[in-house]
């Protein structure tokens, strides 16, 4: 990292070029598939082609005979040897699901693993897969949550009546009274299709027996190495100390690599049995059906509004098609509960009621994906606000200003029981409107366009609860209730600072952020700081990277550890330099008196501490290694408001984004360029979510989108230049940091949806189903019949 900086220049707030990225840009990253061990075998899975069927027989005789095949294993053969994934009993209604790592008796979605083959290479393993014959008895499939919850629907699990994996009724405040006295009641339906996180790199693992001191060493493309360690030990009946988990360079996570899946656990089981390393790399065809899907919601939403446009109450009904199993750790409750529970977003909502359901279907399980639940919660409410504004003849921005939680009302407890504080909702909205010249945009919109396109403008505001501490549950019903995360700081014998943490980055440059924070706290040059991460054998305990938490936890722990380390450094330096501690400071890795009359480099200090310690009183030399845990207790709200201008082609239904202006509050920024990348990347995914991406199943549960030609994500041509502005306010967390990984996708889905709906509304149409594919747009305009 560049070392040129002005005296006293803070590294926090500087776009430090990340050393972390150098191996990646030079082609020397080490991703999962780049790892090879001597004697390593390769696994491939036979997957169900049926959405729902009873397994009558499996004939793997020919596969077992094939040269190069080491082992073939079925679910039945694993019974009793390992513990399947049991969903946690949740405190709301809904049944539990049991997921065997390889299907036993029944398959419940296309893509479910049925058999595994271990062979000398992957191609041979796939050859063997082709030789295995499975006889199925097809069963009726559940593919629509609204049909699946009916009393006479087939059951995905006998243990889940009405196919509910979760159902929750919630009410707070007087909802009925608000609707009775409302000046206006607006209602809207909203649906959003199934999504794929679509990490460019799929999942994968290398499982190895007795590498170094561990019974099982697991390299895994994953966001949560310590959590994986815990569950590997639990399910394989090992001690947690016997398991080492390493997350190598990871080609995207976005939540998809935060769940626990069967395949990696199968490989671990096989490696222990074979006493040889076993590698599995998920290919794209597998990834499309075997890694968790996301969203897939239907929402019916009503608001009671007074004559000033203030929302008095929200009442919603939510159905989430959660797929065949309760996703392990996070549960089937995650999407349904967060969608309905976080519906109020940044707005003052005094009365809230919802009924939300996670309905099991014969599809791939739904799991976490960037900003779980909130994009659809936000988009449905933002669209409803636009409806109300139109009916009341209030400008949509003005209507939002009247409902946002203003700074002067904070701390503000919303009807979903969340406290909003230290967050700039109103300033974000005002900033995006000012930068976009919103009034001018509306004036231009009123004039007839000369290009034949229909112009739409959408403005959406969002709140994103980040950096959740132990006092705020990440989601009721999940197995995982994260606690504190630790960072170890160690001043090496060379005077270089090592930061160790189990907080993997999938591009978020977490280590760079922690380095910058440490540099400021300790006065150490960036080039004197190095990082170790992602390895449970090298880093202290931590929960890992998810839910916009990592920079908050990691930086907070760095600050805590750095303060103690600084205290130790200065105490020792005062002794060695024979000056009062209070006269000392650390600048650019040098301990010096304020007048710079006396100096001592950290290298000189560590020499004394490590190698000449006998001259130093023991209490002054406790060692230069400090581990601190950090828990922010509560979460911090981040916020944003996005303005989007679209042109809709009324002949093809194509939507082009012609302007995108975002304003965000992400708290104190550590590395502006990294943060900008997170926000713009999130917006791009949101644009894909709102306009393009959808996993499609037919009525029998067969997936129709199994390649990247079918599931279309945005290319450089679909994403406009994003104009990004900041209205930041520090959080209450150490350092004032907030999470910024997820929020922008929420704003993007809402603002793009509102812009498309605006274009259609002004031309007598509307749209309620997203993504707003060209065909849905034309249907919404009445150009195509609605049954198309």
């Amino acid at each position: 990292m560049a070392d040129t900086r002005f005296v006293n220049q803070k590294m926090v707030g500087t776009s430090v070029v990340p050393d972390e990225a150098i191996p990646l840009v030079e082609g020397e990253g080490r991703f999962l598939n780049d790892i090879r061990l001597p004697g390593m075998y390769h696994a491939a899975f036979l997957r169900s082609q049926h959405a729902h069927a009873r397994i009558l027989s499996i004939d793997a005789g020919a596969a077992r005979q094939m040269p190069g095949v080491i082992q073939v294993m079925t679910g039945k053969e694993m019974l009793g040897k390992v513990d399947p994934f049991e969903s946690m009993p949740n405190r709301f209604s809904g049944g539990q699901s049991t997921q065997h790592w390889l299907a036993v008796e029944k398959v419940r979605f296309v893509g479910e693993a049925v058999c595994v083959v271990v062979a000398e290479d992957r191609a041979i393993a796939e050859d063997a897969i082709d030789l295995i014959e499975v006889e199925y008895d097809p069963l009726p499939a559940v593919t629509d949550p609204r049909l699946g919850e009916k009393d006479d629907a087939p059951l995905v699990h006998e243990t889940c009546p009405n196919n509910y994996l979760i159902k929750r009724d919630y009410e707070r405040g007087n909802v009925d009274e608000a609707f009775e006295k409302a000046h206006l009641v607006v209602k809207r339906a909203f649906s959003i299709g199934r999504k794929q996180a679509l990490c460019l790199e799929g999942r994968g693992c290398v499982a190895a027996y007795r590498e170094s001191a561990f019974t099982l060493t697991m390299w895994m493309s994953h966001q949560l190495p310590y959590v994986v360690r815990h569950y590997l030990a639990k399910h394989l009946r090992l001690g947690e100390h016997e398991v080492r988990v390493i997350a190598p360079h990871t080609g995207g996570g976005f939540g998809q690599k935060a769940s626990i899946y069967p395949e990696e656990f199968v490989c671990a089981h096989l490696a222990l049995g074979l006493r040889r390393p076993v590698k599995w790399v998920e290919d794209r065809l597998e990834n499309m059906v075997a890694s968790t899907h996301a969203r897939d919601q239907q929402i019916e939403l009503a608001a009671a509004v007074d004559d000033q446009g203030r929302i008095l109450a929200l009442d919603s009904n939510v159905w989430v098609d959660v797929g065949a199993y309760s996703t392990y750790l996070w549960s089937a409750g995650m999407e349904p509960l967060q969608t309905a529970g976080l519906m109020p977003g940044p707005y003052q909502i005094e009365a809230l009621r919802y009924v939300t359901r996670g309905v099991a279907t014969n599809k791939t399980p739904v799991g976490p994906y960037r900003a779980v639940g909130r994009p659809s919660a936000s988009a449905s409410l933002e669209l409803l606000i636009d409806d109300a504004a139109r009916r009341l003849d209030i400008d949509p921005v003005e209507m939002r200003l009247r409902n946002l939680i203003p700074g002067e009302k904070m701390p503000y407890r919303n009807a979903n029981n969340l406290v909003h504080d230290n967050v700039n909702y109103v300033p974000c909205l005002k900033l995006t409107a000012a930068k976009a010249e919103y009034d001018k945009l509306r004036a231009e919109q009123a004039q007839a366009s000369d290009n034949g396109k229909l112009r739409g403008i959408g403005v959406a505001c969002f709140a994103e609860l980040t950096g959740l501490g132990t006092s705020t549950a990440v989601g009721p019903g999940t197995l995982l209730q994260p606690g504190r995360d630790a960072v170890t700081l160690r001043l090496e014998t060379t005077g270089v600072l090592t930061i160790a943490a189990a907080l993997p980055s999938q591009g978020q440059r977490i280590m760079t952020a922690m380095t910058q924070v440490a540099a400021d706290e300790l006065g150490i040059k960036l080039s004197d700081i190095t990082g170790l991460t992602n390895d449970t054998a090298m880093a202290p305990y931590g929960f890992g990277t998810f839910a916009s938490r990592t920079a908050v936890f990691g930086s907070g722990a760095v600050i805590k550890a750095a303060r103690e380390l600084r205290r130790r450094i200065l105490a020792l330096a005062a002794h060695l330099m024979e000056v009062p501690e209070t006269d000392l400071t650390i600048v650019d890795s040098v301990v010096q008196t304020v007048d710079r009359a006396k100096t001592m480099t950290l290298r000189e200090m560590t020499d004394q501490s490590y190698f000449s310690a006998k001259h130093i009183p023991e209490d002054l030399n406790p060692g230069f290694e400090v581990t601190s845990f950090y828990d922010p207790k509560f979460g911090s709200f981040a916020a944003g408001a996005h303005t989007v201008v679209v042109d809709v082609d009324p002949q093809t239904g194509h939507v082009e984004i012609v302007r995108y202006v975002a304003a965000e509050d992400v708290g104190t920024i550590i590395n502006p360029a990294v943060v900008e990348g997170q926000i713009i990347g999130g917006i791009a995914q949101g644009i894909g979510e709102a306009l393009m991406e959808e996993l499609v199943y037919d009525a029998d549960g067969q997936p129709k989108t199994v390649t990247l030609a079918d599931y279309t994500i945005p290319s450089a041509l679909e994403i406009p230049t994003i104009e990004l502005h900041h209205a930041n306010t520090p959080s209450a967390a150490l350092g004032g940091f907030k999470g910024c990984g997820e929020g922008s996708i929420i704003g993007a889905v809402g603002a793009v949806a509102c812009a498309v709906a605006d274009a259609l509304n002004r031309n007598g149409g509307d749209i309620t189903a997203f993504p707003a594919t060209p065909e849905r747009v034309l249907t919404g305009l009445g150009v195509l019949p609605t049954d198309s």
Partner: protein
Amino acid sequence: MKPAWFDYHAPDNLEDALVLLGDAGIDGRVLAGGQSLMPMLNMRIVTPSVLVDINQIASLNSLQAGPDELRVGALVRHADLMRNPAVREGWPLLAEASNQIAHRTIRNRGTVCGSIAHNDPAAEHPSLLVTLDGTVVAASAGGRREIPAEDFFDGMMSTSLEPGEMVVEVRYPRPRKGACFGFAEFARRLGDFAIAGAAVMATMNGGVCEQARLTIIGMGDGPFRARAAETVLAGSTLDAVAITAAADEVRSAVDPGEDVHGSSSYRRHLAGVMTERALEQAMTRARGDGNG
């Protein structure tokens, strides 16, 4: 996602290739650019037992623009075609439409003849060949034959090639003086397979369309020649009324299938829109310099 086994041959002359293909019969596949075949091999959607790689056969890498026709050999890549000055000058429709084919890296490798032999209904080249009234030259160990484009394509991803036979060349007659072109296609993203598209060659004389050839892309069975629309256009000045009428004819004539990118009714609608856009382009060019 690794291919199943196959026998691989890379002969350096056409005669050997044709013998190998003849011996393999229906179990043989030609590997040229591989941009359609390789994904199917990787996914094991097709599992030929013999792969005949023609990339070593220099004689097939031949692109000749003569006074009467353009001859495109089996190894001519999309990138070669669209960059060739003689093609850009004499067959601008081919050069322009090629820009819509996938992306630069795919165009570096994918071949014109391969696209034609594959006959994906959403691909551009089969329809361009029909529009330009081209001919396919097929060869087998038993000899050569020339097949008019419209007889060559016979249904979704199906052609009149016999087992053991391959496309060695396609030929496009030089467009007549006064020929104007239009091409329009709609895909979710640039480079994706078309949901619908239209290619037109209108031969103008004194502001009047003497003859039009109009082909619709993306309709399920391969290139769809819109004859009824062509009849409407012949004798018109490509005026707005004629264009609308042609688009109406197209909408009523096509019978598109459906997939995740579009329903049958959406494709039918788009076929009309793309027809209008292609015709408007041709008309604009006709009124410009009569060349196009």
